[in-house]
């Protein structure tokens, strides 16, 4: 025991601080990225909702919304939100098997990696379908 020992501290438990916990481990960092990018998903829903409201308000309003969407700031926001959404989808499907009941096919449990891969495939297929539809309906 070192000199200056404080006997009144006998049995004292040391509680470590949680400050900065989310950047102490890459797993926590990517969890926080998943949480933050969920806000980006909500923000983009609001952007689209503004478009629907503009459409309801008439042609002038709709054209103003379209012009706003074509501005450099909007394109920068879209690139940022797209990156966020890719991150979110990747992270979400990785954890999806942990969030759902056990799946059985032909009496055998479906592996977590299969569920994740099916999620990635569905996301890629849905995005490809949307891009194809937009291309086909372009003015």
């Amino acid at each position: 025991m070192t000199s200056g020992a404080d006997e009144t501290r006998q049995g004292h438990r040391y509680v470590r601080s949680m400050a900065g916990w989310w950047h102490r481990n890459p797993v926590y960092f990517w969890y926080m990225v998943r949480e933050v990018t969920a806000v980006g998903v909500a923000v983009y829903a609001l952007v689209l909702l503004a478009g629907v409201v503009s459409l309801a308000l008439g042609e002038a309003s709709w054209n103003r919304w379209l012009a706003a969407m074509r501005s450099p700031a909007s394109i920068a926001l879209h690139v940022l939100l797209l990156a966020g959404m890719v991150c979110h989808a990747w992270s979400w499907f990785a954890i999806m098997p942990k969030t759902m009941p056990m799946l059985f096919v032909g009496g055998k449990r479906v592996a977590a990696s299969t569920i994740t891969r099916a999620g990635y495939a569905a996301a890629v297929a849905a995005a490809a379908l949307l891009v194809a539809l937009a291309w086909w309906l372009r003015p």
Partner: protein
Amino acid sequence: MRQIEIQCLRYHPVADQAPRWQTYEVPFTDDMSVLQGLQHIKDQLDGSLTFRWSCRMAICGSCGMMVNGEPKLSCETFLRDLFPGPVRVEALNHFPIVRDLVIDQSDFLRKLESVKPYLIPGKDPEGTFLQTPQQMEQYYQYSKCINCLLCYAACPQYGLDPEFIGPGLMALIHRYNADSRDGGRAGRMELINAEQGVWTCTAVGYCSDVCPKHVDPANAVNQNKVNGAIAWLAGPFRPKASGKP
């Protein structure tokens, strides 16, 4: 023989105001675990180093500690895989430190008693309890928990709010609730649906990654978010029970 540097977080409740790092040079062979490295320190270099261990074969769950920032069983973490080091060893995160690498488990043990971790006979207590392989699979992985607490050290929500019942005990609750022979589900639902039950979990998922027995506690917690929500919604429509389940 190769040498590796092991840095241990030391804490003596009387002598130290706060934990401090202490470094040891440890000779090791390819078959030596981190636990054996610590035992070498205790036997040959510094008898005051304090840590828990028992079986040395990843079944007792005593030797959990943070190794290079990750919750690990030190008996199944090998020094050869951490060479050239240094190896940083500290007490499991999110628990108060009693001394050196020893944590205070009393919070977990208090909660363990509260979850009714045993089979409660259902409608037919004298039944033969036949189960199909699929019925058994619903709970079997959750029955493999060894209470090593690595999942608690992985869970930031437990660190931020120690009232959270935590991943390990949620897996244990699910182990009994998902068992077709058990009739105690309604009695455990209150714990599941409490704010400190499943709803404190935010699906970080790291608890399942660190589990040495592949129990997948995150899956148990998240399945019970659905079960808890259904029980809550169905609550007003259920006839009042005459006694406690």
